[in-house]
């Protein structure tokens, strides 16, 4: 699948990793968003979070990332949350005043990596490396955030609506990356309204219609 990507994954994760959530609840502004959420995820598996708007998909991801307090229930990680996880949220944390190339240098410095030459080509951004991030389209910014996943291999990916704003080749790119990640024993939890080809399980939040 991912053979077309020049920036290769050359790592594999431990096969005995896993993540278990037990009876999670989330409270925002005094309102109970969800409760009794439980799931188990093993190495090589991907979980898709589905549910209507406001059902707490993003909140659950933020709880997993440790950015929101857990109102009830607990996580059992076989990994340390900070070091072993990537969180790509709604807000991309990109700075409009930096160029694409500068952003990449900054991301590489944060990940303590050399700047890989082929990465922008893989992400389909080779032609716009001199452009300011502020001038990029929403889809191009999405592609740029994917660089974080590749620069620093971490076993758990938390993706919030990973396919929004992306064109057909962008969606293919996300799917290829996800499949390569899972094949190496990684885990993915993605909130998405659309079906994800790589998802092995599904968790529906909120009231079902």
């Amino acid at each position, binding site marked *: 699948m991912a053979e077309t990507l020049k920036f290769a994954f050359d790592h594999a994760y431990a096969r005995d990793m896993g993540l278990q959530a037990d009876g999670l609840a989330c409270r925002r502004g005094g309102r109970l968003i969800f409760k009794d959420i439980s799931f188990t995820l093993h190495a090589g598996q991907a979980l898709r979070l589905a549910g209507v708007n406001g059902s707490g998909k993003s909140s659950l991801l933020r709880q997993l990332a440790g950015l929101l307090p857990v109102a009830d229930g607990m996580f059992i990680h076989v990994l340390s949350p900070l070091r072993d996880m990537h969180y790509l949220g*709604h807000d*991309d944390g*990109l700075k409009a005043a930096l160029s694409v190339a500068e952003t990449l240098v900054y991301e590489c410095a944060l990940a303590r990596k050399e700047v890989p030459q082929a990465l922008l080509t893989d992400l389909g951004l080779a032609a716009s490396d001199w452009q300011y991030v502020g001038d990029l389209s929403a889809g191009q910014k999405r592609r740029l955030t994917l660089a974080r996943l590749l620069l620093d291999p971490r076993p758990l990916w938390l993706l919030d609506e990973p396919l929004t704003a992306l064109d057909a080749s962008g969606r293919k790119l996300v799917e290829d990356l996800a499949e390569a990640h899972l094949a190496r024993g990684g885990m993915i939890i993605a909130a998405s309204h659309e079906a994800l080809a790589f998802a092995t399980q599904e968790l529906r939040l909120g009231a079902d219609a």
Partner: protein
Amino acid sequence: MSLFATLCAAHMRLAWRGGQTILALSFLFIAVTLLPFGLGPELKLLRALAPGLLWVVLAISLLTTLDRLFQADFEDGTLDRLRLLPLSLEAALLAKLCGHFLVLVMPLILSVPLAGLLLNIEAARLPLLLVAMLCGAPALVLLGGIGAALAVSVRRGGLLTVLIAMPFYVPVLIFGAAASQAALSSGTAIRPYLGILAALSAAALLLAPFAIAAALRAAQD
């Protein structure tokens, strides 16, 4: 390069591109130029008032740079990233504040002696004045940072930042003005005042990152 230095350098670049340095400097000079118009051209009076005036002008122009210090990061998801770095949020924010100090506050401090000339301060006294400002300014930045962090979820929180930070500025301004007064008059010992200013800055350096990080975490919950 360490993570701390990377974050500091990144903030310096962004702050510089934001163009706020020139704005804050212009503000400082406009304020100092306006003072003689309000107070009258009495040179003796200007010289007597200069120490206090310069501190107030420095504090206010510094506050103008603190507007949106954390707000952009809060809104665009950068704060999430800082929280997820293998570096404590406190350290990451301190790196940001260091960058802010170097790019936006240092030029202000360094231009104060020049502004002092406009208020008829003797050139020979200016280096001591500069030292006093260097001792006190870190406290102003760090305390102002607490104000900015507390106001972060308010859409137009600039004025709120000022209101929160101002009371904390009182001790720094009192000892700053006293130090400057001592710097300008021969005979008064300046070192005790410098010591107190430096102590205020050191205390702020120790405590402010925790307060700022706690305020930002609370704003995100």
